[in-house]
């Protein structure tokens, strides 16, 4: 229990937590990276795919509120949740 009580955030939520805008250039793949990076599907999308409707956590309703009707976290990435309402198969689904 002591080392298992908390978890890393959903990886697809990091875009919104940190508010960063990801680069669109493919990062250089180097020999220092674990093999998994060789098989990563780099598809950051485009800036026209959606607005930065990150929404906010509403403490009263205890749910996430987004201003556009759909959650658009993980913007511009294949891991975004914008593809369908709620979450998508690729969003940390196997975690």
């Amino acid at each position, binding site marked *: *229990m*002591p*080392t*298992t*009580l*908390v*978890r*890393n*955030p*959903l*990886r*697809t*939520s*990091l*875009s*919104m937590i*940190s508010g*960063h805008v*990801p*680069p669109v250039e493919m*990062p250089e793949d180097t*020999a*220092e*990276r*674990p*093999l*998994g*990076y*060789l*098989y*990563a*599907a*780099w*598809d*950051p999308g485009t800036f026209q795919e959606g607005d930065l409707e990150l929404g906010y*956590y509403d*403490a009263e*309703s*205890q*749910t*996430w509120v987004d201003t556009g009707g759909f*959650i658009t*976290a*993980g913007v511009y*990435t*294949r*891991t975004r949740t914008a*593809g*369908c*309402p*709620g*979450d*998508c*198969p*690729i*969003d*940390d*689904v*196997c*975690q």
Partner: protein
Amino acid sequence: MSSPNPSVLILTQDFDPTVDPVVRSLAAKGADVVRLDLSYFPKTLTVNSSDFAGGRRWLRHRDREVDLDRLAGVWYRRPTAFKFDSEMGEAEQQFARNEAVHSIGGILRATDCLWVNRPDVDAVAELKPYQLALAKKLGMRVPRTLLTNDPQEVAALLASADRPIVYKALTGGVIHYPGAFPSGLLTALVGDEITQHLDRVRHTMCMFQEYIDKSREIRLTVIGNTYFPVSIRSQDLETTKVDWRGENLLPYGDYEPLPDDIVKKVQAMLAELNVVYAAVDFIVTPSGEYVFLEVNPSGQFMWMYHDLGLPFGDWIADLLMAGGQFHRGSDVTQVGY
């Protein structure tokens, strides 16, 4: 005077789309639901356990209070790390973290209610090599698997393999780039490209599996003793042939209940893992054989709710409100769509 309504605690981060519909369902059903992230501790979350003045254990966050002795259920999703005062140095933060995790972990573990799932249970249940070993022991077919950080073992496998080989990450379909930028990491067929990169196997453990020919795949969501098997026609699209996570909008197949034999084996596996909730993945071969891939003890499900109308949120809410000790029995209900 305490509320007569069932009390439910949800531990997760603020952004967790899987949880939102369940919160709404719990509220609509009349439960006293409190959603917390452990990152609120210690700034806005107080945790208390006292043997004095009658004895009581409770949490308080802003204007909400949770009586831990009155809980029906806890949904342990994705609580993130405590956030201590940044004025503290690393040594002080480490001490504070250790004190907090031992204390809060112990207080929560001492609750006598339903956990979906307990964090210590999840921590073991999500270990994929253990799952594969357990599945084999229970008589399920699993893909032949190589786990290694030795490039020579990988080279030897590729030279001798009688089937195509896939690389599959053990920790899911998302990978970080520097700057915390996420990208997809799907199961991939290994080709000649690996020969120039074999040395990268040394960096950490890698999992390689034989590629199994598929007719379709099954994503099974298990909520208590209720099964929600969803058929995915993964071979209909090039993008989902190797890994169905390659598309957001999936080609679903018609509802097909799991065979009794598979239900029995899954129940035995989940009993061994001691989980109340799980998502389980299978390949169905062209000859109809079920091949076990993995168990995801905190796998998400709302995408299937939106696509197929399966009422996962209500089932989770009902389970949490009912509370009590869970017994994985032989009586399984399968729900179609």
